[in-house]
């Protein structure tokens, strides 16, 4: 069987499941007897096993198989989740990640799974005795494990109601376990035929895995279906066997008593979970929501990009039509275009939304990272994640991971103190790192906060002087906030000792560059002994922005509206000089002046010195500047186009856009303009 065409899907899904495994095992570590989490882990491992076996990756399948054994024992409470077991499972997940990546890069796999397999086997054998536990709950658990030995199906409230109702009507419920023949190719199609056939003699109320997963072929060779019917078991069996490529089918009556208990058990676990306020427990809610999730389609990101480009074209043409309507005073046309405008705006926002992905996709790998780091550094750290549902453009999501890793590592390594030191300073020995995402206007804010020791501006100044990044004179003039921002300079590293975690001197300026290349910005606030806060501001989208068009002599430039404070008129005499730099006074603030004509080397045209000047006040973070332009044209939606490889990297220009008349206008890069 040619499996190449499924490769992309296999990789993507494996990665998803591995991610899920990571977060679930982390949760399990906090709540070792949480059955629903165990179930989730088991399912993910099982899916990976199934997929990899189908694809012929035997190493992956072998490892997951052994993992499954352990997980199954955990689930049946024959084994308890000791730190040793958790660590081993983590190691397995890491190894699986490496294996999957080696499949992705098509590299020869030299990864050894043998030691892990041996270890897993030993764990399974050595401690395969039911661990004695006490209390009412244990009884329920052992009971449930007994009853579920045949059936591992958890029922939801509604499903139980359906079952109860069916029993009330004298109908029978059966659990049919269908085994497909080895080598069966269209497994999802087979499962669909089975479902169809069963639907004819009764009602299928549940399948394991879910119907969605069956359709996606997310199962091995067997699946289970609960059917409510008036027919008997034999009839059910025959119906299923009438379909080709079915190896065998086991039909057992489904009894509600058992299921109810299982169900209650799960409930207990869930309420316990809910009571805990530990941050890692945000995950099960997300997992539950995910399981519920509606129908979805996987689409290649390239297709979405193409769609976005087309919408961009449409917007350009719409603007062009608008201009024709206005120049020729065609009222009908203008009205029609207004309607079209609404449609294109909607279309645009829909396409944008389609490209949006929750930041949770990036965030969810951090709990594991923080755990490993804090263990490695002997620090105790509580990671709090908020706002993981905040959505960002896919391109931004792909890029934002590395900077965040850097910031988190910095917070953990440099920010949070060792427990003893924290206690000495009267702080909670457990440090707190918060990762928060939220919307703010047309931006998304991501913050990395810690309650560590903060950044000392004097130390920063000292290091910066020592590394010859600034001079003593410059340092003396700096206020503390400015001094702290020095950490963003290239070649700055504060770690007194270079550790494994951070402090190689490439950190913060790389973070800053990355974020700025995404059209965002990063700033830092800090208080000694109270902690630091890194604030990243990112645009919602990179493709279409609102901009102010301005004239500078004959040329037209676009200034992104997001960085404009206001536009003001001043007289030439309002411009003062401070230390040979031109500034103006606006609302009590001293604002440096940027003469666009000068910065952009615009050829001098013969004209009188204007008495009245237009100034666009722009800002990047706290920094402001007044940009002098000849004329303001107006606000317009512009589609950002790149200048291409040949012209990449020009300072001051962020990109280009096409105006309504087909002319190209350049978009100013405010950040580099201010500097």
């Amino acid at each position, binding site marked *: 069987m040619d499996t190449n065409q499924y490769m992309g899907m296999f990789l993507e899904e494996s990665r998803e499941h591995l991610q899920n495994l990571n977060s679930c095992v982390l949760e399990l570590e906090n709540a070792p007897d949480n059955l629903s989490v165990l179930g989730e882990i088991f399912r993910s491992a099982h899916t990976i096993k199934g997929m990899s076996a189908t694809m012929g990756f035997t190493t992956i399948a072998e490892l997951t198989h052994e993992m499954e054994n352990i997980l199954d024992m955990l689930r049946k409470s024959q084994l308890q989740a000791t730190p040793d077991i958790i660590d081993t499972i983590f190691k397995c997940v890491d190894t699986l990640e490496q294996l999957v990546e080696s499949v992705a890069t098509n590299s020869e796999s030299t990864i050894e799974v043998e030691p892990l397999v041996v270890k897993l086997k030993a764990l399974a054998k050595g401690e395969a005795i039911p661990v004695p536990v006490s209390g009412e709950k244990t009884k329920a658990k052992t009971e449930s494990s007994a009853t579920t030995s045949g059936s591992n199906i958890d029922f939801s409230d509604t499903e139980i109601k359906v079952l109860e109702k069916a029993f009330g009507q004298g109908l029978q419920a059966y659990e049919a376990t269908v085994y497909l023949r080895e080598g069966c190719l269209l497994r999802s199609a087979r499962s669909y035929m089975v479902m169809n056939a069963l639907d004819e003699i009764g009602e299928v109320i549940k399948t394991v895995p879910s119907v969605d997963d069956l359709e996606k072929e997310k199962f091995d060779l067997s699946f289970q279906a609960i059917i409510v019917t008036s027919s008997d078991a034999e009839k059910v069996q025959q119906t299923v066997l009438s379909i080709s490529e079915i190896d065998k089918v086991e039909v057992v009556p489904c009894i509600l008593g058992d299921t109810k208990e299982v169900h209650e058990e799960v409930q207990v676990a869930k309420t316990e979970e809910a009571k805990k306020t530990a941050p890692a427990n945000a995950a099960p809610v997300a997992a539950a929501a995910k399981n519920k999730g509606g129908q979805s389609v996987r689409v290649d990101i390239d297709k979405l990009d193409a769609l976005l480009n087309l919408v961009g074209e449409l917007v350009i043409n719409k603007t062009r039509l608008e201009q024709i309507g206005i120049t020729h005073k065609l009222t009908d046309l203008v009205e029609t275009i207004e309607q079209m405008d609404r449609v294109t705006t909607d279309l645009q926002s829909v396409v944008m939304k389609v490209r949006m992905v929750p930041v949770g996709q990036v965030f969810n790998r951090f709990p594991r990272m923080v755990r490993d780091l804090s263990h490695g550094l002997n620090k105790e750290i509580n990671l709090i994640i908020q706002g993981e549902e905040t959505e960002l453009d896919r391109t931004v999501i792909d890029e934002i991971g590395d900077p965040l890793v850097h910031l988190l590592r910095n917070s953990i390594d440099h920010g949070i103190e060792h427990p003893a030191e924290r206690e000495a300073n009267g702080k909670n020995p457990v440090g707190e790192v918060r990762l928060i995402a939220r919307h703010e206007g047309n931006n998304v804010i991501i913050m990395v906060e810690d309650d560590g020791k903060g950044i000392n501006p004097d130390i920063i100044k000292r290091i910066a002087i020592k590394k010859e990044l600034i001079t003593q004179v410059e340092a003396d003039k700096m206020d503390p906030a400015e001094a702290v921002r020095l950490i963003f300079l290239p070649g700055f590293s504060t770690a007194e000792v270079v550790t494994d975690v951070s402090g190689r001197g490439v950190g913060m300026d790389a973070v800053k560059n990355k974020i700025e290349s995404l059209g965002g910005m990063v700033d830092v606030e800090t208080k000694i002994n109270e902690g630091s806060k890194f604030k990243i501001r990112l645009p919602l989208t990179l493709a279409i922005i609102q901009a102010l068009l301005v004239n500078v002599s004959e040329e037209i430039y676009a200034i992104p509206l997001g960085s404009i404070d206001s536009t003001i008129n001043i007289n030439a005499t309002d411009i003062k000089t401070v230390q040979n730099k031109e500034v103006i006074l606006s609302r009590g603030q001293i604002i440096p002046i940027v003469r666009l004509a000068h910065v*952009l080397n615009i050829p001098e045209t013969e004209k009188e010195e204007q008495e009245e000047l237009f100034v666009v006040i722009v800002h990047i973070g706290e920094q402001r500047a007044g940009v002098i332009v000849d004329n303001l044209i107006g606000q317009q939606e512009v589609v950002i186009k790149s*200048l291409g490889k*040949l012209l990449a990297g*020009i300072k001051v*220009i962020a990109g*280009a856009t*096409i105006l309504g008349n087909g*002319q*190209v206008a350049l978009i100013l890069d405010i950040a580099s303009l201010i500097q």
Partner: protein
Amino acid sequence: MSEENYSNDEIQLVIFKLGREEYGVSILQVQEIKRITDITRVPHTPDYIKGVINLRGSVLPVIDLKNRLSLPQQASTEDTRIIIVKVEDLSIGMVVDAVSEVMTISRQNIDSPEVVAGSIAANYLSGVGKMEDRLLILLNLEAIIGVGQEVNPA
């Protein structure tokens, strides 16, 4: 222009004029020929980068070929054209004084550029073609566009 373009016995060239001289590029590298349109100047670029144009919704850099080859400048006329060429995935426009014809030339009629070295940087040439009494200067587009050496802000 790479060797393989000339490996066959004959090649097809798009012939254009810069001042009084005739130049040629392989037709395989030419995407289209356009009348001159509005060119938006891009600041902080070398002189020979004339700016960018809108080619059906995408932004394309345009170079001033005469400037690049250090030839005397002259104002654009009715005949001025932009030849859009594609070099290693990079589409780029070149302003030329006129596009005259497409011509097939036999490989043995192409001399190596050394014969005229000194007139313009020999680096930008890939050969000189002889057609009866005409001389065609064949351009090395890779070198002219400077693929691989991104334009640094001035």
